[in-house]
């Protein structure tokens, strides 16, 4: 069992008013960049935002499960609605259950949201490993983005600084993750709801002098 069409990293952090999440719009088919407009972040209910990396079709399946979950929640019509903590718990149980049956959903999920002023950001892997933190990332983001976030994240980031920090992470991923594409969305979730930006690209710089004539310091066959 292995994945076919995959999305790469998702990066997210808590900021003053809620959660900011970023993901590019690529859907790779092995080493081919097959789909270039894949939305890998979706709002869930009133209070949550889900980002996914890994197999896109499994992500779509998860969205179908969550549609049903939210529908039944709404049908109670009792004024209460599932918050991000509850959705994260549900997803964790789904992922773990599939792992138990040796038929995993091949995704790493990031679930963020705000309910009653409480910010929440959690993640769950394809085998059910889950935790919450002030900043999370999937895949390559764990290697490249988290160290940047550990250094530069702090409580009560402004929206602009949060976006700047996320863009810094996404730029590094763009330079160094071969499955990354330069077309991304940044999503914001606050008490007021979810906003997912229009797709845009990051400015990149390829003229660093250290990379000009890279063999200069070590002439040889490699």
């Amino acid at each position, binding site marked *: *069992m292995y994945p076919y069409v995959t999305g790469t990293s998702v990066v997210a952090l808590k900021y003053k008013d809620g959660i900011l999440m970023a993901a590019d719009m690529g859907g790779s088919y092995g080493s081919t960049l097959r789909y270039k407009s894949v939305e890998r972040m979706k709002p869930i209910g009133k209070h949550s935002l889900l980002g996914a990396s890994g197999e896109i079709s499994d992500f779509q399946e998860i969205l179908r499960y969550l549609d049903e979950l939210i529908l039944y929640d709404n049908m109670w019509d009792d004024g209460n609605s599932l918050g991000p903590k509850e959705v994260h718990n549900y997803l*964790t149980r789904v992922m773990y259950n599939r*792992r138990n049956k040796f038929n*995993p959903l091949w995704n790493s999920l990031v679930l963020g949201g705000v309910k009653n002023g409480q910010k929440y950001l959690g993640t769950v892997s394809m*085998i059910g*490993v*889950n*935790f919450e*933190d002030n900043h999370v990332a999937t895949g390559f983001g*764990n290697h490249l983005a988290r160290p940047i976030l550990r250094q530069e994240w702090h409580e009560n980031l402004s929206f602009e600084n949060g976006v700047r920090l996320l863009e810094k992470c996404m730029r590094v991923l763009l330079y160094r993750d071969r499955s990354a594409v330069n077309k991304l969305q940044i999503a914001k979730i606050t008490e007021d709801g979810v906003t997912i930006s229009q797709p845009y690209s990051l400015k990149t710089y390829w003229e660093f002098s250290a990379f000009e004539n890279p063999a200069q310091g070590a002439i040889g066959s490699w």
Partner: protein
Amino acid sequence: MTKQQANWSPYDNNGGSCVAIAGADYCVIAADTRMSTGYNILTRDYSKICKLADKCVMASSGFQADVRALQKQLAARHLIYQHQHNKQMSCPAMAQLLSNTLYYKRFFPYYSFNVLGGLDNEGKGCVFTYDAVGSYEKVGYSSQGSGSTLIMPFLDNQLKSPSPLLLPAQDAVTPLVEAEAIDLVKTVFASASERDIYTVRRQTRTCYHKCSWYPPGIHGT
């Protein structure tokens, strides 16, 4: 056409160490706060301790998803017990339940290395130590997890427990007072974190005392 090989594992080791020490009228349980995968740190602020009953706390390291599922199973069974018996489960009772729950999955184990600590019905400290499939033993102190090979010999040396083979059986709980035991636990994590990459100095620590008990709190170095 070669057969499709599975290239994912249902298990992962998220690392960490757990320790528990029993005294005459107290019990200290501690676990570090790092969660890792491979050579990466997933989070620096994760509690491996779970309160199962009023006087019974479990610290578990290993595969976090299995640990979580195990904690939920035990919590659910405890709730049923409370409904049926109108009381909390005692620590020895929970110890047996944990053993049975682990063995239930003998052929697809919970990859969870547990240490159970608390007070028995007389208010004396008790510690139970487990392997992944439910084999367990009541002891005076124990450690489990990635740092246990470093921690256990140190505890053996410092606590000088009588041999379990002696007849008549001698009490394994330590004569140390609670403050000394807590100090020992802090030292243990300071040492283990030097050489075990999966263990950090920072711990969550719970102390049960006969008269009152301290809710789990994050205590640093």
